[in-house]
């Protein structure tokens, strides 16, 4: 079973290396071979991830003795689902690349980047060592940078590179600040073991300081308002597969970090900062929601909606109760699936439209390509929190959690936040339906419609990608218990020890 652990974490990185080497060969490697290799690797690591979650093996090997850095890998109920999500979304992203012709570079490089991102994310979720967590956290940056800069939207010269660089710089700044926090945490806690960190009684004052530094760093990745401005540009320019991975994998790492490094070990410090975090989260919800009402670019709308959703997750975390933590974890996962779905659909639309400007009048997607339309409307519905779809549970439970924050937080203030978050949900509906109205139902006003050339509807691989995600959205929405039960013991541990 330990092998599964390594396969889940390291195989994608090896695949990335192999693909990178292949892409440098003087002779062109057939595209199909590249595809098969990357798909096989992603699928195998998905299987391995499932096995890991099921059997829960763990590994502990020294790596850099001087720093006390160890290969300490394992999963629990919080990281397991994220691990599987990362692997699954990568499988889909690999498929997605197949449907959209790669522009700007070789397919091998594209797939290599995806594999590397997956490897980094998997290691992030597998890491039980705080410093290893950081190292894994950084792995995803360069592949993502290449994905955006090299394979990104070429319509405006230089934009892709600028967006990619902004993304990397923002994230590096955040993660290096996080590193200082981690080092401080490890020093104060006396151990780098994430599981044991939450039990180490760090004095309250120091907790606050460490929590502030860590949150400052992680807020970039989450992203928490006002540190979100890298996100829209990155999403808009990234290729579809990149957007999917960015939304479904990378953003999860931020919140996961908050749970692992801040909520657990720095319980008191986090409690002191919770009102600030909650406030920023709610501002983020409203802010992003408002922007989505007037934003012209469809991809940017989806990107901003990510900001809003992560705001919900952060608010739930800030509430500090077991309910809040569950809501946050669930919301995190749900957002991963939903935004991956939306980006897959929107990427397909952009491809067919040759642009994603919402101001242009277009015929409705529901008639021209029913599958695409169905997937879009499903994604939007999930995003606005329609029940029986993934987005609902987190949204409602967050309001409940914020209404009754854990001890040490101002109840009155959090209730105001809860009410504002509920209002934010209205904005969420407003912008999701704005998109539905313009894109799904169509924005052309002429009743006598010209016969429009049908776009190709979703086909083959694209349809597999979209329908899998849609299925996941529905399953998560109808049956939330499984995941919550998985996380429940960990949540109790995280909060119970500190109490």
């Amino acid at each position, binding site marked *: 079973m330990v092998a599964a652990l390594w396969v889940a974490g390291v195989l994608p990185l090896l695949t990335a290396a192999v693909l990178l080497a292949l892409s440098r060969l003087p002779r062109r490697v057939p595209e199909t071979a590249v595809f098969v290799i990357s798909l096989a690797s992603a699928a195998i690591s998905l299987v391995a991830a499932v096995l890991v979650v099921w059997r829960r093996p763990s590994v502990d090997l020294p790596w850099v003795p001087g720093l006390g850095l160890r290969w300490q890998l394992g999963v629990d109920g919080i990281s397991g689902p994220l691990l599987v999500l990362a692997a699954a979304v990568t499988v889909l992203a690999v498929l997605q690349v197949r449907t959209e012709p790669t522009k700007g570079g070789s397919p091998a490089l594209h797939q290599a980047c995806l594999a590397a991102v997956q490897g980094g994310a998997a290691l992030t979720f597998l890491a039980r060592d705080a410093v290893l967590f950081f190292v894994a956290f950084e792995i995803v940056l360069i592949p993502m940078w290449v994905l955006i800069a090299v394979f990104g939207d070429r319509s405006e010269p230089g934009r892709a590179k600028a967006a990619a660089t902004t993304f990397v710089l923002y994230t590096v700044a955040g993660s290096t600040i996080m590193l200082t926090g981690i080092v401080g945490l490890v020093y104060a806690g006396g151990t780098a073991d994430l599981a044991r960190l939450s039990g180490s009684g760090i004095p309250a004052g120091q907790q606050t300081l460490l929590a502030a530094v860590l949150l400052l760093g992680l807020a970039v990745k989450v992203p928490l308002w006002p540190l979100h401005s890298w996100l829209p540009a990155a999403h808009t320019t990234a290729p579809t597969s990149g957007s999917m991975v960015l939304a479904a994998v990378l953003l999860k790492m931020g919140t996961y970090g908050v749970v692992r490094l801040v909520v657990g070990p720095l319980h008191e410090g986090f409690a002191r900062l919770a009102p600030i975090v909650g406030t920023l989260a709610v501002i983020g919800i409203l802010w992003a929601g408002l922007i989505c009402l007037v*934003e012209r670019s469809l991809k940017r709308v989806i990107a901003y909606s990510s900001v809003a959703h992560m705001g919900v997750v952060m608010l739930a975390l800030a509430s500090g109760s077991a309910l809040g933590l569950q809501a946050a974890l669930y919301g995190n996962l749900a957002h991963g699936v939903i935004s991956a779905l939306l980006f897959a659909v929107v990427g397909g639309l952009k491809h067919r439209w040759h642009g994603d400007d919402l101001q242009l009048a277009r015929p409705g997607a529901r008639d021209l390509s029913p599958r695409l339309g169905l997937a879009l409307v499903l994604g939007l519905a999930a995003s606005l929190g329609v*029940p029986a779809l993934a987005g609902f549970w987190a949204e409602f439970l967050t309001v409940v959690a914020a209404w009754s924050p854990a001890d040490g937080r101002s109840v009155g203030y959090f209730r105001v936040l809860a009410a504002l978050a509920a209002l934010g*949900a*209205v904005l969420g509906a407003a912008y999701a339906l704005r998109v539905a*109205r313009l894109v*799904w139902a169509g924005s052309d006003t002429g009743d006598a419609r010209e016969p429009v050339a049908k776009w190709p509807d979703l086909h083959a691989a694209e349809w597999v990608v979209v329908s899998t995600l849609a299925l996941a959205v529905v399953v998560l929405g109808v049956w939330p218990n499984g995941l919550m039960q998985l996380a429940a013991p960990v949540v109790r541990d995280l909060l119970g020890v500190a109490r």
Partner: protein
Amino acid sequence: MNLQAWPVQPGQLVVLVPAATAVLMVLLARRSNAVNFAIAILGALLGLGAAGLLAAQAARGPLPADLPTIGALPVGPGIAIPLRLHIDHIAVLVTGAVAIVSLTVQAFARWYLFHDPRYRQFAATVALFTAAMQLVVVSDDVLLTLVGWELMGWCSYLLIGHDSEREKARRAAYKAFLVTRFADAPFVVGIAALAVVAQTTSIRAIVQHWSALSGSLTLTAALICIICGVAGKSAQVPFQDWLPDAMEGPTPASALIHAATMVAAGTIVLARFAPLLAGNGTARLVLAISAGLSTVFAAALAFCQHDLKRLLAWSTVSQVGLMLLAIAALRPGVTPDLAVLHLLSHAAFKALLFLVVGWLAVLTGSTVVERLSGAVTDHPRTRRLVAAGLLALAGVPPTMGFVSKDLIVDEALRSAADRDAASVVAALALIIVVPLTAAYAMRAWLVLTHRTVSERYQELDVIDDSRSVREVGLAEMLREAEPVDAHGHALEPAPAPDPEPVDDSPRPPIPTRGLLWVLALVAVFGGVLILSPWLTVDYLHPNWWIVASALMAMAAAAILVRAMALRTVYGDAAARLPRYVRSVASRGLDLDRVYVALVATPVLALARVVARLDGAGERGVAALPGAAERFGRWSETKHRRTPTTGLVAVALGVLVIGLLGVTLW
């Protein structure tokens, strides 16, 4: 048949069957309409069967009160989310009504939307809608209630926006969802507040917990929040405006939304919380004011509508207001069964009316007064159905509408006698609305049965023809002209009398019409339900004075309307009203513009400001590399690349370091 031993109880089936139907239809969406219809109708029948089983179960003995769904959510200490169902007699009745209406709508939709390319989506949405409503009805968990509640909102969005080629339909759908969602924000907060203190989301537990704290301010606030949400879904003041716009949806959708499901859901939810409301005068007063205003205001507007479908829409607002008034006038210890009774009767007659109007609209092409005027006369098949529906709507004895409404009035007046503020408001509103209802029902009847002007002219033509003499010229006579009589009329053997005109106008197939007849029968004779042991209604001691005076008022209103309708072109009593009144009323008093001005415009303006700020922030971030580069360039000019500047820097560095070191120490 031992129902108790089934792995899936009928109480769960009523929700599961329609939901499964919807899923099946989505999965098989590429198949033909016929297959789809088969699934839909089968699903609806099964759903009805499940409701029937439930009723059978209830008739036999005690219900399995507590049913699990997906299992409790393990969300840790502090709160329990059991997610269970609770079946009581109210639930049994309402699930039955919902199942019947749903079945009728499914059957009717197949006919109504026969050529519609989106029929499949429509049918699936209707099934899902049904499931959601059933969930609300049988739910014992605020979270489940919210699931059904929001799901209905979403389905209503899909149904209203069915004809999304039309901008108006898109807008109406958007508006409906947003308004209800906006009202849901306080609703969510309200149930969260209740659940948090009770530490559970089970409705019965919440009610039990809070009953001990009936005076608490939190409770009042939470209840008002919930009322707010109910007002949104049920289109009560101040959220009423989405409902008439929702008439952009196909008629079967309107029937579903208005009759048994979405707008009535508010009544069910409030009925669940009735014990808490009964003890809380403030919340009831708020409810009474909102519902009272709605019922009167909507009835008045209904009278003025130019479009009969919108008339029905406003009447829905008015009727739901009635149900809510019944709850607002509740005294402690009294069950909200009256409201549920009215819900049932409203479900029957409103579904009937909508579907028949839809039928007529297919025949005449529109639902405006001009087109529908005299439609019933032209198409006598619809006559009895319309009559049954309108009579029940007006509350003419002995229809079910009469029974339920009269009992509400009775109850409210009784409570008002106790000087309960909410009841006084409710009673006032009821007194006004009873004749108003009769008036608009009468108006609709007169319009529909109007013998149109063209028919009258035709009759006149026949009379005139016999007298007029046709000029016949010589030339015509020389030609081989038709033989004519002395008057110049063609000398033909008297034409064989026309065969009895065959009414070959389109009509729904027989089973569908049968279902309509079922609805009509329920609307007329459903009043007997008060005799059932499932409803605790005090029908034995009616105040005959009240009954009589209400009937008098209704009769007076009807006569007045008849008088007004005399000598109007379309038999429309409202034509006597000034034109601007009618046009403003048809636009719902232009409240839409007020909404836009008060909410939409400021929010959009704010959004633009925020977007601009965010754009500035993003540009600022994006400009940082440029700024760094500029700094680098500036700094490059300072590095003159000469050895001397390097030396100056060294010297400065030594001095600064020395100073720092010595001083810092």
